[in-house]
Protein backbone atom coordinates (compact mmCIF):
# COMPACT_ATOMS: atom_id res chain seq x y z
CA UNK A 1 0.00 0.00 0.00
CA UNK A 2 1.61 3.27 -1.08
CA UNK A 3 -1.17 5.81 -0.68
CA UNK A 4 -1.47 8.06 2.34
CA UNK A 5 -3.91 6.52 4.74
CA UNK A 6 -7.08 8.46 5.37
CA UNK A 7 -7.75 9.82 8.82
CA UNK A 8 -10.57 7.31 9.18
CA UNK A 9 -8.31 4.39 8.28
CA UNK A 10 -5.68 5.41 10.82
CA UNK A 11 -8.10 6.07 13.66
CA UNK A 12 -10.10 2.92 12.99
CA UNK A 13 -6.86 0.96 13.35
CA UNK A 14 -5.88 2.83 16.53
CA UNK A 15 -9.35 2.25 17.99
CA UNK A 16 -9.00 -1.43 17.16
CA UNK A 17 -5.69 -1.67 18.99
CA UNK A 18 -6.42 0.61 21.95
CA UNK A 19 -10.24 0.73 22.17
CA UNK A 20 -12.19 3.89 21.22
CA UNK A 21 -12.39 5.02 24.86
CA UNK A 22 -8.62 4.86 25.36
CA UNK A 23 -7.89 6.34 21.95
CA UNK A 24 -10.14 9.32 22.67
CA UNK A 25 -7.97 10.19 25.67
CA UNK A 26 -4.73 9.63 23.74
CA UNK A 27 -5.96 11.78 20.86
CA UNK A 28 -6.69 14.59 23.31
CA UNK A 29 -3.22 14.30 24.91
CA UNK A 30 -1.01 17.36 24.82
CA UNK A 31 2.69 16.82 25.46
CA UNK A 32 5.68 19.14 25.11
CA UNK A 33 8.99 17.36 24.50
CA UNK A 34 12.05 19.43 25.39
CA UNK A 35 15.13 18.04 23.65
CA UNK A 36 14.92 15.83 20.57
CA UNK A 37 17.97 13.61 20.99
CA UNK A 38 18.12 9.99 22.08
CA UNK A 39 15.41 10.47 24.68
CA UNK A 40 13.15 12.97 22.95
CA UNK A 41 13.14 11.43 19.47
CA UNK A 42 12.27 8.01 20.92
CA UNK A 43 9.58 9.44 23.21
CA UNK A 44 8.09 11.32 20.28
CA UNK A 45 8.03 8.19 18.11
CA UNK A 46 6.25 6.20 20.80
CA UNK A 47 3.65 8.88 21.48
CA UNK A 48 3.04 9.54 17.78
CA UNK A 49 2.55 5.84 17.07
CA UNK A 50 -0.19 5.51 19.69
CA UNK A 51 -1.84 8.67 18.40
CA UNK A 52 -1.16 11.20 21.15
CA UNK A 53 -2.85 14.05 19.37
CA UNK A 54 -0.92 17.19 20.25
CA UNK A 55 2.86 17.21 20.35
CA UNK A 56 5.12 20.20 20.85
CA UNK A 57 8.69 19.49 19.77
CA UNK A 58 11.42 21.79 21.11
CA UNK A 59 15.13 21.72 20.22
CA UNK A 60 17.66 24.26 18.90
CA UNK A 61 20.12 21.83 17.35
CA UNK A 62 20.74 20.17 13.99
CA UNK A 63 21.20 16.45 13.37
CA UNK A 64 24.85 15.41 13.60
CA UNK A 65 26.53 12.22 12.38
CA UNK A 66 27.22 11.17 16.00
CA UNK A 67 23.48 11.25 16.72
CA UNK A 68 22.81 8.24 14.48
CA UNK A 69 23.99 5.76 17.14
CA UNK A 70 20.83 6.33 19.18
CA UNK A 71 18.52 8.98 17.78
CA UNK A 72 15.66 8.35 15.37
CA UNK A 73 17.16 10.17 12.40
CA UNK A 74 18.62 9.07 9.06
CA UNK A 75 21.67 10.05 7.02
CA UNK A 76 19.67 12.46 4.92
CA UNK A 77 18.75 14.45 8.02
CA UNK A 78 22.33 15.40 8.89
CA UNK A 79 22.49 19.19 9.05
CA UNK A 80 18.71 19.58 9.33
CA UNK A 81 17.10 21.05 12.40
CA UNK A 82 15.87 18.23 14.61
CA UNK A 83 12.48 19.90 14.94
CA UNK A 84 11.96 19.78 11.16
CA UNK A 85 13.45 16.30 10.69
CA UNK A 86 11.44 14.73 13.51
CA UNK A 87 8.17 16.40 12.56
CA UNK A 88 8.51 15.07 9.01
CA UNK A 89 9.18 11.55 10.33
CA UNK A 90 6.24 11.56 12.76
CA UNK A 91 3.88 12.73 10.03
CA UNK A 92 4.87 9.67 8.00
CA UNK A 93 3.41 7.58 10.84
CA UNK A 94 0.30 9.71 11.30
CA UNK A 95 -0.24 12.83 9.16
CA UNK A 96 -3.26 13.88 11.23
CA UNK A 97 -1.33 14.67 14.40
CA UNK A 98 -1.13 18.27 15.55
CA UNK A 99 2.63 18.87 15.77
CA UNK A 100 4.01 22.25 16.80
CA UNK A 101 7.74 22.89 16.65
CA UNK A 102 9.97 25.51 18.23
CA UNK A 103 13.57 25.60 17.09
CA UNK A 104 14.88 27.44 20.11
CA UNK A 105 17.09 26.97 23.15
CA UNK A 106 14.99 26.81 26.31
CA UNK A 107 16.05 29.41 28.89
CA UNK A 108 14.66 30.83 32.11
CA UNK A 109 13.39 33.75 30.01
CA UNK A 110 11.32 31.84 27.43
CA UNK A 111 10.29 28.83 29.53
CA UNK A 112 6.98 30.20 30.77
CA UNK A 113 5.84 31.15 27.28
CA UNK A 114 7.06 27.93 25.63
CA UNK A 115 5.34 25.52 28.01
CA UNK A 116 2.13 27.43 28.71
CA UNK A 117 -0.05 25.13 26.58
CA UNK A 118 1.16 21.62 27.41
CA UNK A 119 -0.48 19.57 30.15
CA UNK A 120 2.52 17.22 30.32
CA UNK A 121 6.16 18.24 29.91
CA UNK A 122 8.83 15.70 28.94
CA UNK A 123 12.37 16.73 29.87
CA UNK A 124 14.64 15.04 27.36
CA UNK A 125 17.76 17.19 27.32
CA UNK A 126 21.32 15.90 27.23
CA UNK A 127 23.04 18.62 29.26
CA UNK A 128 22.68 18.25 33.05
CA UNK A 129 22.45 22.00 33.64
CA UNK A 130 19.73 22.31 31.02
CA UNK A 131 17.87 19.43 32.67
CA UNK A 132 18.05 21.12 36.08
CA UNK A 133 17.03 24.50 34.64
CA UNK A 134 13.95 23.04 32.96
CA UNK A 135 12.88 20.95 35.94
CA UNK A 136 13.27 23.85 38.38
CA UNK A 137 11.48 26.21 36.00
CA UNK A 138 8.52 23.93 35.33
CA UNK A 139 8.05 22.99 38.99
CA UNK A 140 8.26 26.65 40.05
CA UNK A 141 6.08 28.21 37.38
CA UNK A 142 3.71 25.37 36.50
CA UNK A 143 3.21 23.22 39.62
CA UNK A 144 -0.06 21.90 38.17
CA UNK A 145 1.59 20.41 35.07
CA UNK A 146 2.92 16.87 34.99
CA UNK A 147 6.68 16.68 34.47
CA UNK A 148 8.51 13.55 33.34
CA UNK A 149 12.30 13.82 33.37
CA UNK A 150 15.30 11.49 33.03
CA UNK A 151 18.80 11.16 34.39
CA UNK A 152 21.37 8.36 34.08
CA UNK A 153 21.11 6.14 31.00
CA UNK A 154 24.59 6.00 29.45
CA UNK A 155 26.58 2.86 28.70
CA UNK A 156 25.46 -0.75 28.58
CA UNK A 157 24.87 -1.49 32.25
CA UNK A 158 21.95 -3.60 33.32
CA UNK A 159 18.59 -2.71 31.80
CA UNK A 160 17.03 -3.39 35.17
CA UNK A 161 18.65 -0.46 36.96
CA UNK A 162 16.59 1.97 34.88
CA UNK A 163 13.43 2.78 36.79
CA UNK A 164 10.69 5.38 37.09
CA UNK A 165 10.42 7.24 40.40
CA UNK A 166 7.81 9.69 41.59
CA UNK A 167 9.80 12.46 43.28
CA UNK A 168 6.90 14.82 43.94
CA UNK A 169 3.17 14.76 43.22
CA UNK A 170 3.66 15.93 39.63
CA UNK A 171 7.35 15.16 39.08
CA UNK A 172 8.47 11.79 37.74
CA UNK A 173 12.11 10.83 37.16
CA UNK A 174 13.32 7.96 34.97
CA UNK A 175 16.80 6.46 34.60
CA UNK A 176 19.40 4.83 36.84
CA UNK A 177 20.10 8.20 38.46
CA UNK A 178 23.88 8.07 38.19
CA UNK A 179 25.37 6.88 34.90
CA UNK A 180 26.80 9.76 32.88
CA UNK A 181 28.63 9.03 29.62
CA UNK A 182 32.32 8.14 30.03
CA UNK A 183 35.00 6.72 27.72
CA UNK A 184 33.82 3.36 26.40
CA UNK A 185 30.47 3.84 28.08
CA UNK A 186 28.84 6.51 25.99
CA UNK A 187 25.21 7.02 25.18
CA UNK A 188 24.05 3.98 23.22
CA UNK A 189 20.77 3.20 21.49
CA UNK A 190 19.57 0.27 23.62
CA UNK A 191 19.86 1.78 27.07
CA UNK A 192 18.83 5.29 26.05
CA UNK A 193 15.76 3.77 24.37
CA UNK A 194 14.90 1.88 27.57
CA UNK A 195 14.96 5.15 29.49
CA UNK A 196 12.97 6.92 26.76
CA UNK A 197 10.39 4.14 26.92
CA UNK A 198 10.11 4.67 30.67
CA UNK A 199 9.38 8.32 30.02
CA UNK A 200 6.94 7.55 27.19
CA UNK A 201 5.05 4.96 29.22
CA UNK A 202 4.78 7.24 32.24
CA UNK A 203 3.43 9.97 29.96
CA UNK A 204 0.96 7.49 28.46
CA UNK A 205 -0.17 6.48 31.94
CA UNK A 206 -0.69 10.12 32.91
CA UNK A 207 -2.72 10.81 29.78
CA UNK A 208 -4.88 7.82 30.66
CA UNK A 209 -5.37 8.95 34.26
CA UNK A 210 -2.85 6.72 36.05
CA UNK A 211 -0.67 8.77 38.39
CA UNK A 212 1.15 5.96 40.17
CA UNK A 213 4.47 4.73 38.82
Amino acid sequence: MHHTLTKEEIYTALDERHSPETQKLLSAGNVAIAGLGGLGSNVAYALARIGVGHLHLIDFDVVDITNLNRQQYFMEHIGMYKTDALKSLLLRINPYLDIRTDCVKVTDDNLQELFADATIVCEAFDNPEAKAMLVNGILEHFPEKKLVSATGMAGYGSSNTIITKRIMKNFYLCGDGVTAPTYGHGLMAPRVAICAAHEANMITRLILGEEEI
Partner: protein
Amino acid sequence: MITVNGKEVTLTGPLSVADYLEQNNYQIKRIAVEMNGDILPKYSYSDTMLKDGDRLEVVSFVGGG
Protein backbone atom coordinates in the same frame (compact mmCIF):
# COMPACT_ATOMS: atom_id res chain seq x y z
CA MET B 1 17.31 15.71 62.73
CA ILE B 2 16.32 16.19 59.08
CA THR B 3 15.84 13.68 56.29
CA VAL B 4 17.77 14.03 53.03
CA ASN B 5 16.99 11.62 50.19
CA GLY B 6 15.49 9.21 52.70
CA LYS B 7 18.46 9.25 55.09
CA GLU B 8 18.45 10.87 58.53
CA VAL B 9 20.94 13.67 59.02
CA THR B 10 21.77 15.33 62.35
CA LEU B 11 22.32 19.08 62.27
CA THR B 12 24.98 20.49 64.57
CA GLY B 13 24.00 24.14 64.27
CA PRO B 14 21.97 26.61 62.23
CA LEU B 15 22.35 25.77 58.56
CA SER B 16 20.75 27.13 55.40
CA VAL B 17 19.87 24.88 52.50
CA ALA B 18 22.64 26.57 50.49
CA ASP B 19 25.17 25.79 53.25
CA TYR B 20 24.05 22.18 53.43
CA LEU B 21 24.30 21.73 49.66
CA GLU B 22 27.75 23.32 49.56
CA GLN B 23 29.04 21.22 52.46
CA ASN B 24 27.88 18.09 50.69
CA ASN B 25 29.47 19.05 47.38
CA TYR B 26 26.30 19.34 45.36
CA GLN B 27 26.65 21.17 42.05
CA ILE B 28 24.03 23.87 42.40
CA LYS B 29 23.48 24.22 38.65
CA ARG B 30 22.72 20.51 38.26
CA ILE B 31 20.18 19.94 41.00
CA ALA B 32 16.55 20.40 41.93
CA VAL B 33 15.57 20.51 45.59
CA GLU B 34 12.24 19.43 46.97
CA MET B 35 11.56 20.48 50.55
CA ASN B 36 8.62 19.02 52.46
CA GLY B 37 6.84 18.14 49.23
CA ASP B 38 7.34 21.35 47.26
CA ILE B 39 10.03 22.58 44.94
CA LEU B 40 12.43 24.96 46.63
CA PRO B 41 13.30 27.73 44.15
CA LYS B 42 17.04 28.33 43.78
CA TYR B 43 16.71 31.94 44.92
CA SER B 44 15.47 30.62 48.29
CA TYR B 45 18.41 28.30 49.04
CA SER B 46 20.40 30.94 50.95
CA ASP B 47 17.63 32.26 53.18
CA THR B 48 15.90 28.95 53.91
CA MET B 49 17.10 27.64 57.26
CA LEU B 50 16.85 23.91 57.90
CA LYS B 51 14.78 22.97 60.91
CA ASP B 52 14.06 19.77 62.77
CA GLY B 53 11.81 17.40 60.83
CA ASP B 54 12.48 18.91 57.39
CA ARG B 55 12.46 16.46 54.53
CA LEU B 56 14.73 17.26 51.59
CA GLU B 57 14.92 15.47 48.31
CA VAL B 58 17.91 16.58 46.22
CA VAL B 59 17.80 15.40 42.62
CA SER B 60 21.19 15.54 40.88
CA PHE B 61 21.16 15.43 37.11
CA VAL B 62 23.91 13.74 35.13
CA GLY B 63 24.50 14.24 31.42
CA GLY B 64 22.92 12.12 28.73
CA GLY B 65 19.87 12.10 26.57
